[in-house]
């Protein structure tokens, strides 16, 4: 429902954000881009709990889903940076790039 009362949304956003501030991602190339873009719609724990079983292939599918299905306006070069970062830091520990 898009036409909701914005005042109440903002009020609730304050309470919902309390824990999210503590959630960060690992240091690495592309961390800032990943944190900034992904956290626009969801907290970063979504990434942490889906690791380390996701591969380059499934992280790519996930980022593509955000763009194609959920309308996230992620420029192609940023999407590539995010996929590289997620694969390197939240992918299989042996570095396999399936």
């Amino acid at each position: 429902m898009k036409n909701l009362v914005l005042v109440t949304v903002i009020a609730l956003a304050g309470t919902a954000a309390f824990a999210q501030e503590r959630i960060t991602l690992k240091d690495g190339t592309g961390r800032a881009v990943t944190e900034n873009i992904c956290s626009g719609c969801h907290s970063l724990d979504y990434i942490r709990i889906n690791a380390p079983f996701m591969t380059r292939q499934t992280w790519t599918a996930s980022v593509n889903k955000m763009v194609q299905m959920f309308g996230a306006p992620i420029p192609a070069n940023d999407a590539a940076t995010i996929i590289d970062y997620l694969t390197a830091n939240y992918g299989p520990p042996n570095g396999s790039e399936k």
Partner: protein
Amino acid sequence: MDRRHVLQGLGGAIGLASVRLGSVARAAEAPLPAGLPEGIYNTAALETLPGKRPLIRLTTRPPNYETPLSYFAESITPNDAFFVRYHLAQIPQVNAATWRLNVGGEGAAAPFSLTLNELETSFEQVDIAAVCQCSGNRRGFSNPHVPGVQWSSGAMGNALWRGPRLKDVLARAQLRNEVVEIVVDGADSAPLADTPDFIKSLPLAKAVDDNTIIALRMNGQPLPHYNGFPARLVVPGWTATYWMKHLVSIQAVTRPYDGFWMRGAYRIPNNMFPVVQRFLSQETAANTPITEMVVNSVIASPNEGQRFRMGEMVQIRGVAWDGGYGIARVEVSVDGGMSWRDSTLGPDAGRFAFRSFTYGFAADAPGARRIMAKATNRIGKTQVDTLIFNPAGYHNNVVRATTVMIG
């Protein structure tokens, strides 16, 4: 392995008593079993949302929090311990005084809107006990793991719901004969305008089932904010994806609804699971919407890793449920599945409710004991021993084991 030992050591301390400590337990380690993706163990925590007891936080925004297993020792799940699940992060605090429910659609000859008071006073209010379980409950145990919220076993609860029948509300809208589905929407939405709003549809037959209601009360109280205040759909027997929270719109449509959350999500491969009620207007050659729940059970007590002295009685408690056929029996094994005995079933609160079960045995041999439960429903369906893998991790009703230590 280290993690598992830590959890086992905490076993006794993370039961019901400590969960009730309130804010003291806020940042505590979450009581989670082994077998989940590694990332969950340094991310999840016991945390208290406003109006809730400490629940296991999986994600913050949107909030996804599951109920600790210890609560399933009882057949009714307390409102403030009931799990929280949202898809989209804009969640309004609904004002009951200004809230309206809009009923219409191209299949309705007489559209109208209702206040909360009208919904409560103009229609018969009915009570039904029913299990609300996320489709992805236990996704975290999928092998191999699949992307999504990595739920353990606590994305579910059972409550006594009260409110008007959906069919009574629809009757006032004078549905045309061409109606095939009823489309429902809640007040929550996404941060981005281009993200598909969370909108679901039901086949007309399920929408007008006597048991499908618009719940205004939950266990005798108004719904908690995080469980859909002031009104949510209750679709007994079917997974929680259809139980729209913060309900604001009910539309009768004459063609199948083709939004993302119907066509692109919550689907299972055809013919993979033994379900009776299907959603034929949404079925494709490859897959079909998830509908009714599969038969399942959970052991709430003892805790994983709990210790017992030789000779002590071990009391097993838990609940079983299914898609609305009713639980016929719950068998228990205390030897890792080699032999099975019938447990004692608790009171029957209706075919859509949790059915509690208990079984006691004397701790008669030292060492680790694997305790298991396996439910069978009244149409003869039972839990599986081996995962039926599917890409979204739905319908996981594998028989699970709790290991206790004796001596």
